[in-house]
């Protein structure tokens, strides 16, 4: 309601207009954009160092910084408000800045100013002057042909007794900035899309022979048929791989082997090999139905008080009203044997059963150590330790933004290539008749403090010198100034 915009002189602008104007000017400002990039860079540095030993070094060597360093390590830069904020700000600034520059860039491509001044040509760091023994019209034709021969586009305009020349090359290279900056935006958008509509399960543990549902709103589940660790004879890991099958609504839809660097893709979901460990196959009898239940449990997700170094698992057997804890023997001799109260031998498992809430039949924990192949009854439930198995750790991910990232990559690289390898080269000049059959040509590149552009102009002039057999005076103001100052 407050936005009643009346065209008025600047002095009488409404406060809203002033604010809008300020915001616009902030976003179109290149200076502000550069400061934003600098701020982002600093945040990235802070976040990077957080993942290193550098802050610790600072805390150790600079007194009084330990509190700050502690907070530094605690600060998750990448998900912090300032970081998200600067990315958003940059995305907006890139959009507005680029949009703001677009008309000017298009103007310089499609309708460049052809006319120039003698002052510009005289003051240029580099310029070439030549006298041609032909009329102005003929000279214009000659010079235009020469410039076109050097792959320049040539535009001319008559100004009284002079013809003004504008020639340029690679004018479309200037457009490279647009795909590049567009790609930066789409990468950021892709990050948001991936976070919002994708998912990632980092530790998806599946023992051999078990089918596990992926969930996350999908009807997909994974069955692991086999897991193998492959080593070299010197003992280093060569590969680890799982043979898996993908099921959708219970139907097998895909199968294959996954190993690091060789994931399995099903639809927009990707399954990765990530880790592995020890599992156990335990059978128990459901007291409510009398049916045998085959349980394969990954060991290692839990710690047992009786031996914290050993692999252990905990599971609620709801129909039996008990919680089962299993501890395997500790096979790593580097672990601390003094913490091991169980002293299990290989081929044994420690089983502990405790009542779940609501179980009145069992009041205390009961425990037992059993050998592979044996059966023991604990809390009224018979348990059989069938055998040991392996489990695999998969990663399951779905990221709908991947096509966006692929497109962005091509835009980024293509945009940069256009900008850097097809730089816009421009030459201005004036051709004037000095007599009926004589004329003078003055040319200068738009190459202020641009050594490469100057060199490319020099090579164009060299070409002319060869073709026209005319004396050409090439003046390098910078060098003659340098020479003068050396002489003093």
């Amino acid at each position, binding site marked *: 309601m407050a936005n009643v915009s009346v065209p008025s002189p600047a002095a009488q602008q409404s406060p809203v207009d002033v604010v809008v104007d300020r915001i616009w000017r902030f976003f179109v400002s290149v200076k502000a954009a*550069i400061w934003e990039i600098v701020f982002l860079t600093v945040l990235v540095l802070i976040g990077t160092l957080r993942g290193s030993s550098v802050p610790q070094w600072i805390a150790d060597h600079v007194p009084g910084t330990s509190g700050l360093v502690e907070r530094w390590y605690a600060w998750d830069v990448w998900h912090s408000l300032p970081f998200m904020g600067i990315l958003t700000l940059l995305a907006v600034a890139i959009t507005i800045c680029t949009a703001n520059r677009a008309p000017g860039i298009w103007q310089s491509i499609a309708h460049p100013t052809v006319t120039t001044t003698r002052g510009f040509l005289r003051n240029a760091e580099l310029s070439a002057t030549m006298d041609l023994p032909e009329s102005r019209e003929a000279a214009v034709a000659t010079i235009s042909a020469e410039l076109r021969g050097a792959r320049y586009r040539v535009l001319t305009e008559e100004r009284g007794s002079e013809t003004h020349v504008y020639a340029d090359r690679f004018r479309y290279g200037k457009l490279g900035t647009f795909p590049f900056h567009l790609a930066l935006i789409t990468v950021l958008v892709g990050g948001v899309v991936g976070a919002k509509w994708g998912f990632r399960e980092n530790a998806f543990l599946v023992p051999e022979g078990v089918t596990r549902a992926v969930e996350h709103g999908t009807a997909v589940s994974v069955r692991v048929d086999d897991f193998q660790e492959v080593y070299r004879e010197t003992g*280093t890991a060569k590969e680890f791989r799982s043979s898996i099958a993908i099921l959708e609504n219970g139907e097998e839809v895909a199968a294959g082997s996954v190993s690091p*660097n060789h994931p399995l893709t099903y639809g927009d979901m990707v399954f*990765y090999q990530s880790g592995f460990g020890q599992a156990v196959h335990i059978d128990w009898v459901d007291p409510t139905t009398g049916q045998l239940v085959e349980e394969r449990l990954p060991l290692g997700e839990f710690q047992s008080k009786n031996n914290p170094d050993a692999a252990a698992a905990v599971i609620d057997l709801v129909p039996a009203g008990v919680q089962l804890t299993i501890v395997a023997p500790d096979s790593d001799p580097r672990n601390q044997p003094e913490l091991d109260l169980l002293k299990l031998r290989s081929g044994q498992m420690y089983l502990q059963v405790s009542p779940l809430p609501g179980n009145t039949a069992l009041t205390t924990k009961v425990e037992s150590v059993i050998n592979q192949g044996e059966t023991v009854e604990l809390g009224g439930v018979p348990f059989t330790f069938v055998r040991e198995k392996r489990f695999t750790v998969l990663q399951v991910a779905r990221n709908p933004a991947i096509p966006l990232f692929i497109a962005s990559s091509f835009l980024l*690289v293509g945009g940069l290539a256009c900008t*850097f*390898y097809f730089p816009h080269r421009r030459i201005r000049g004036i051709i004037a008749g000095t007599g009926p059959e004589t004329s003078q040509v003055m040319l200068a590149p738009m190459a202020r403090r641009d*050594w490469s552009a*100057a060199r490319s102009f020099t090579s164009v002039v060299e070409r002319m010198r060869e073709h026209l057999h005319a004396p050409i005076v090439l003046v390098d103001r910078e060098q003659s100034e340098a020479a003068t*100052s050396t002489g003093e």
Partner: protein
Amino acid sequence: MEGLVRLSFYAFAASSIALAAATVCYLIFAFGWIRNRGTALAGAGGPTVMIDNGSSFTESMGRFATMLAWFAVAFQGISIALRSIAAGRLPLSNMYEFSKTFIFIVLLVYLIFERWYGVKQVGTVVLPLALAMAGYVWALPTRLREVDPLVPALQNIPLMTIHVSMAIIAYSTFAVSFAAAVLYLIAKDRNISWLPKPALLDDLAYRAVTIGFPAMTLVLILGSVWAYRAWGTYWQWDPKETAALFTWLIYGVYLHTRSLRGWRGTRSAVVLLVGFAAVMFTYYGNYFFGGLHAYGGVR
């Protein structure tokens, strides 16, 4: 195969000797010019005469410097080729192999720029840098001289080759632009006659960045592609990743200040120094990062 690894090491040693000799020649060349110019200016007081006996020796030194640098490149190339044949992949998998290949590429990139711009003075910074890198390679644990089998996470030879070699190209061109920036800061205002025109140095540094920045962009992109295949996510906020992003952003600042704010010379050169510090930080990051890129074999 074992013989190739050994021969590769001999070639590396030969390359190191050539590199050391080339560095000495580049320095003699540079200081020879300083001395000659000094005497010429003091004696003549006018436009200097370039050809005298002293400068002819200096010129000779310059040509030997370039020749020895090419020898270093050739020996290093042989070394890399032999090791590649033995391993069945390019030597890029740990700090030893990476640094060896870096020496090769940085010298090659430098020599191409030397040809392109017709100036040798930038070599007085690049060559000592490459020599220091060779010293670093010699100081690495000797077990790294053996070809180690790739750990499962690295077993993607096409992606490793292109991702890591892009990183080497980026770091090498940034090293050349750093060298030009250093010389610029020495040359500017002071009218030091043995150095090329400041505008040339500024342009050389810029040209190097126009190769390095797209290469660095490709490093990030290909790293994401590889991360997506090997780790299950295209971006992990792993320290080495973010350090590379940090480097990329600094060169982004350099390019923007240059093209949009018209920065040239001193300010641009300072940004390049900061950028190269970031490159070094990323390069040696394995010494102070944990994280997923800990393949260097240096911890």
